[in-house]
């Protein structure tokens, strides 16, 4: 696949922007052209947040993904908002602890991961997003695990380096789902 | 059954766009209740600022005008001059009123413009994501004072009521807080009094309301109330800074 156009969406605070950044960085490490674009503005507060990520062999045109190949949805409103836009044949990954997919599409692959529940069980509180990232990795192979590890290292600020291992464990957990 | 408390009819049904626990909402209620109780909804025109309360025009059930950032007092002046029977108020944040709008605020006061200003001081720029405001406390961390407000380079907070009280045109200036029910009750009295002044043609009234911004302070709504009380009130003492009716009474 020459390019991935992904949307990461959820409530503010769930780490969807961070997840997108890790993915974009992985693309960069692999020498691809990448872009990351957040939604911004007041609607972010208390509302939903989302970002577009493009990974491609060619320079990225519009960084705004309007027809994603991949959708990661961490809450119901986000699922509802983006599900229709997903390209036929695309991949949709949801945190099934939070999303109850009202509408189902036949022409996309739906991966339901109870990420929040899992994170609580596995003492990975607050990083359900990384579990979903693992699932993304597993289902699309957009990068290698080594690349993603490096990427996480880049993205986790020095002050939070102690959380690195947690993040990686969550990703691995997600890959197994 | 008798209703002890319910939503004011001066507020529309539109859900407010504020963050959970943001006291902007409380202040909205007090303004709405005051106008309603005075029975002047029909001739009131409010001016919304640029700030988190930019969409106040959707929440108040009176006619509303949205002003450029900081210029609400000038817009209100235009309204007041065009509508001699109007009850004109502005609702402004601290960035809006005390930074970019300083000149408009000082001069509306100095002119004794017959308007009410509700000044929401939350010590930060809410809408744009938490930058330093003129009212940000010394040492307070914000997006643009990441190492804490350093008064040596970023200057000192401005106490608006104290400053405006020096102007002959100011009829009434009081600072209140909405961090507790008793304080909310006092705030309500002050706001209502400001509107009474306006209706009586007494000139410029400002009520500065200490308010929270849990989101950009990085606190829970309840913690934010406490932070306000412990940090803001010492720097911004509550009380009446000017009241020509009291002076007349003397």
């Amino acid at each position, binding site marked *: 696949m020459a390019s991935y156009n992904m949307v990461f969406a959820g409530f503010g605070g769930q780490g969807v922007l961070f997840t997108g950044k890790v993915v974009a960085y992985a693309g960069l490490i692999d020498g691809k052209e990448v872009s990351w674009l957040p939604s911004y503005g007041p609607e972010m507060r208390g509302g939903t947040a989302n970002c577009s990520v493009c990974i491609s062999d060619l320079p990225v045109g519009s960084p705004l993904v309007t027809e994603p190949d991949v959708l990661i949805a961490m809450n119901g409103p986000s699922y509802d908002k983006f599900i229709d836009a997903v390209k036929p044949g695309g991949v949709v990954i949801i945190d099934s602890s939070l999303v109850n997919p009202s509408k189902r599409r036949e022409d996309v692959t739906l991966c339901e991961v109870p990420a929040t529940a899992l994170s609580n069980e596995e003492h990975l509180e607050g990083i359900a997003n990384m579990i979903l990232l693992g699932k993304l990795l597993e289902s699309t192979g957009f990068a290698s695990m080594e690349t993603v590890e490096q990427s996480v290292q880049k993205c986790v600020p020095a002050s939070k380096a102690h959380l690195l291992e947690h993040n990686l464990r969550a990703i691995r957990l997600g890959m197994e789902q | 059954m008798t209703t002890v408390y319910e939503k004011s009819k001066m507020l529309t049904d539109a859900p407010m766009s504020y963050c959970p626990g943001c006291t902007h909402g409380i202040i909205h209620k007090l303004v709405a209740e005051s106008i309603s109780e005075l029975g002047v909804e*029909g001739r009131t025109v409010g001016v919304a600022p640029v700030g988190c309360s930019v969409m106040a025009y959707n929440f108040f059930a009176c006619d509303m005008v949205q002003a450029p950032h900081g210029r609400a007092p000038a817009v209100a002046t235009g309204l007041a001059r065009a509508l001699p029977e109007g009850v004109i108020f502005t609702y402004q944040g601290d960035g809006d009123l005390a930074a970019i709008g300083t000149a408009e605020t000082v001069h509306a006061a100095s002119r004794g413009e017959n308007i009410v200003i509700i000044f929401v001081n939350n010590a930060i720029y809410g809408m744009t994501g938490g930058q330093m405001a003129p009212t940000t406390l010394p040492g307070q961390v914000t997006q643009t004072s990441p190492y804490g407000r350093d008064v040596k380079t970023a200057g000192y907070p401005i106490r608006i009521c104290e400053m405006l009280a020096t102007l002959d045109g100011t009829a009434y200036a009081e600072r209140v807080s909405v961090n507790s029910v008793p304080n909310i009750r006092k705030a309500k009295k002050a706001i209502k009094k400001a509107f009474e002044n306006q209706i009586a043609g007494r000139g410029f009234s400002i009520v500065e309301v200490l308010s929270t911004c849990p989101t950009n302070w990085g606190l829970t709504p309840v913690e934010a109330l406490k932070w306000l009380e412990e940090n803001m009130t010492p720097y911004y003492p509550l009380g009446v800074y000017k009241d020509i009716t009291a002076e007349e009474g003397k």
Partner: protein
Amino acid sequence: MAERILMKGNEAIAEAAIRAGCRHFFGYPITPQTEVSAYLAKRMPKVGGCFLQAESEVAAINMVLGAAAAGVRVMTSSSSPGISLKSEGISYIIGSDLPCVILNIQRGGPGLGGIQPSQADYNQATKAPGHGDAHVMVFAPSTVQEMVTCIFDMFDLSEQYRVPAMLLGDGLLGQMMEPVEFPDVKVTPAEKPWAANGHQNKREHNVVNSLYLQPDQLEAKNIERFERYAQIQANETRAEAFETEDCDVLVVAYGASSRIARSAVMNARAQGLKVGLLRPITLWPFPKKELLKASKTAKDILVVEMSMGQMVDDVKLALECKKPVHFFGHTGGIIPTPAEVLEQLKTIAGGAAK
């Protein structure tokens, strides 16, 4: 018709505004338009109107916004640097679809520049009176009498289209006296059901606003406004043609410089040169069809401005670049002389004859 009296351009504007039903003026002093304020400071109290000297141009334009939102006829006045300060407010007024009248009695720029007459704010007035996709109607009278008639029209059209109207004058027109008479017309301001003037518990609450956080709503609003702009462009262009029927060279000039150009054209005709003048009275909308008509026989166009040449592009575009467009002008407050323009005309006519 009333008596013709001698009046300064600035004062005539002020009097015209009052007669056009304007009872609210907010301004801030600046040369060369101070007579507008001085006149209204005297007159407004006598007619029960409001003259207010604001603390700044920024405050003045926002007072205009407030008064216009309340539904009254309102005017403000300034000169070049003050208009720049007003540009945010003007953009808001446009975005809020409010009517009002704005005077720019231009002086030399950029920066503090000078205080002598200039036409160097043409681009600002016609292309970018503020940020965003935004226009105001721009009127450029060339006599004191025409200033008066323009003011009446501006109040009416501004209300009709809910687009602010700007009078683009200059220090020459503002300061000079000429005979003027005031038409004795009854003014009927438009109904303003949208005004924020208190709902009296009789209607839903009105909101005057330029914020649309949803891009599709903002786009729709802009498209709707551009439809009004298109109507204005179709119906409200104004220009005066002078000796254009058989002209070889057409001069295009507005406002003060058109007066000089007119003298030059007369002198040139007297010397047997076939030259004419097209004088745009509206600058936005630009009078394209009038220009096309006036330039039919012309081989060359000469634009005369008191600037480094700002209207030139609009002339070229109107003519689809089909005729050579020359420019002559002075800037910085220097007023071109008819002799200089005649010189240019001779050179061009000479070149064209070859």
